[in-house]
């Protein structure tokens, strides 16, 4: 290669050119985050905490997993999918059917579901990225994918039992191998653990060179190609990873609720909720999912109990929130921090 750089000169070093990620948080903010995590872990140990609140806690972690998984493709890679329920459903159905029909432990079923979801993502992503379908058009493709998946799950009754759904049989004695636990507290910790893994994966991806290139592809595919980046390949990898992470949350849902049907795991409502979590929290950040879920899950629980006599009010409120967000807070809550270099680095903007 040609040497095109000037001789090394002594340059002022005004600041680190690249942030150090969470290491930039400093002792105070870092300590506070650790404290919050400890508090979340201690929640089930509170004397007299009701079933209801633990359930909400589990749902917060679940939606946070989904929001963060969405962000890996949607926030980092600019692939705004409105069909991620497809991957939730594939994860839930794969592990459940393998468990019901072949007595395969749902942990292996989870891995199988992740593979199935990733392959589906590749199948959809390849023609899209090969032929330059991006932005709004890609979002439309994912809506269609969601609808097709929903109809297939409904129609393929021989495999899925259709709209009747599939109950997950109780194990004679609840065991971790069967992904069944005696009480909600244990489920709470499992949810927290899976959420933590999702966040760590998303954070590591963001800090990696691959993640860096993915952001470049999101911003300008042509400029990325000029720099030698194979944009379609990066997008495919991100979409497959996002789908696999999403599918793991699907398995968790099936084992937690012990019943799945197409409406609950393949429905477009779920797809929209997932997007909302990420958008409200800040879709570019690996923490967007948890921030969004911490607000939206309790809010929706409150609305649905308060307006129990008027079903649909809670869902309609999602639409209102989405419209307000796109107008007043397009970068989400964490996006408010993006111009402060230190916080930008911490939240992985």
């Amino acid at each position, binding site marked *: 290669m040609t040497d095109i750089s000037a001789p090394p*000169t002594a340059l002022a*070093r*005004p600041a680190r*050119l690249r942030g150090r990620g969470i290491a930039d948080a400093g002792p105070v903010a870092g300590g506070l985050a650790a404290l919050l995590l400890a508090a979340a872990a201690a929640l089930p140990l509170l004397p007299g905490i009701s079933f209801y609140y633990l359930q909400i806690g589990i749902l917060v972690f679940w939606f946070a997993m989904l929001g963060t998984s969405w962000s890996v493709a949607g926030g980092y890679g600019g692939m705004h999918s409105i069909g991620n329920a497809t991957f939730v459903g594939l994860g839930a159905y794969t592990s459940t059917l393998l468990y019901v029909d072949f007595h395969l432990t749902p942990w292996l079923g989870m891995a199988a579901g992740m593979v199935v979801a990733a392959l589906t993502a590749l199948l959809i992503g390849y023609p899209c990225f090969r032929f330059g379908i991006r932005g709004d058009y890609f979002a439309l493709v994912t809506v269609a994918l969601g609808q097709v998946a929903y109809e297939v799950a409904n129609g393929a009754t021989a495999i899925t039992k259709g709209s009747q759904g599939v109950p997950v049989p109780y194990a004679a004695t609840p065991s971790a191998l069967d992904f069944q636990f005696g009480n909600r507290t244990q489920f709470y910790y499992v949810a927290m653990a899976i959420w933590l893994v999702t966040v760590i994966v998303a954070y590591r991806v963001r800090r990696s060179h691959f993640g860096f290139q993915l952001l*470049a592809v999101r911003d*300008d595919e042509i*400029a*990325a190609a000029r*720099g030698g980046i194979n944009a379609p390949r990066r997008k495919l990898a991100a979409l497959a990873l996002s789908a696999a992470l999403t599918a793991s949350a699907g398995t968790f849902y099936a084992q937690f609720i012990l019943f799945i049907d197409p409406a609950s795991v393949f429905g477009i409502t779920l797809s929209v909720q997932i997007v909302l979590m990420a958008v409200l929290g800040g879709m570019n950040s690996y923490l967007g999912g948890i921030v969004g879920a911490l607000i939206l899950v309790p809010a929706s629980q409150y609305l649905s109990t308060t307006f129990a006599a008027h079903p649909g009010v809670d869902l309609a409120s999602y639409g209102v929130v989405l419209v307000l967000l796109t107008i007043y807070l397009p970068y989400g809550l964490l996006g408010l921090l993006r111009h402060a270099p230190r916080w930008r680095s911490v939240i992985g903007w």
Partner: protein
Amino acid sequence: MVTPMAAGNSATASQPILSVRGVAKAFGGLQVLREVSLDVPRNGITGLIGPNGSGKTTLFDVITRYQNCDAGEISFAGQSILPLLPHQVSHRGLVRTFQLTRVFPGLTVAENLLVFADRAHPRGKDAADTRPHGEDKAREMLDFVGLLRLATHEAATLSYGQLKLLEIAQVLMLDPRMLMLDEPMAGINPGLADELMQRLLALRERGLTLLIVEHNIPVIQRLCDAVAVLNTGQVMAHGKPDEVLGDRDVREAFLGE
């Protein structure tokens, strides 16, 4: 590491680094390029001028594979690049800028360069290789274009001229063998333009080949070893700047005289 000039034998050194043969391109009924042939010699600065709409940017797009051509052959460093995709052309060492600046607006100024840190002189086995790597190179490039103090700002907050400079810093980060610049001086203040010209001349001294689209004649005269004139999709003249710019037909077509 040695430069291709030092490494190449005289036979390859005398061959053009970029050879365009009979390239044609039409958009629907509009024949933008008709049988364009152009040789760009190694280690020099070639200017590409022509009136608006003469096909300069389309030629850039075809060479860097962002557009397919209908006919013709393009080879870079002795090998055909027509079967390649844009990102593969980049890996061969042929890198371009865009007339309408393209950078990554959602990344910081520094990140716009750091994303290509792996391509800035990959650290070799040669311990004597003292050239700046990765972050040091990014710092140096940002310092050169005067954007170092904005390193941690989002690129979306830059002005047009600053974006232009950021793009130039970015392509230099890629360690190219040949650089194609589409109107590099447009929108840059005179002082900086002068500095940029000096830098481009220094790059040529170090073995870089440049192909520059530029409307500013003094810039062409100062920088270029050769000039090609594109008019209505054809190369109407090609030679030394003074000869080409003195040509009556060229002055009529390009300068409206």
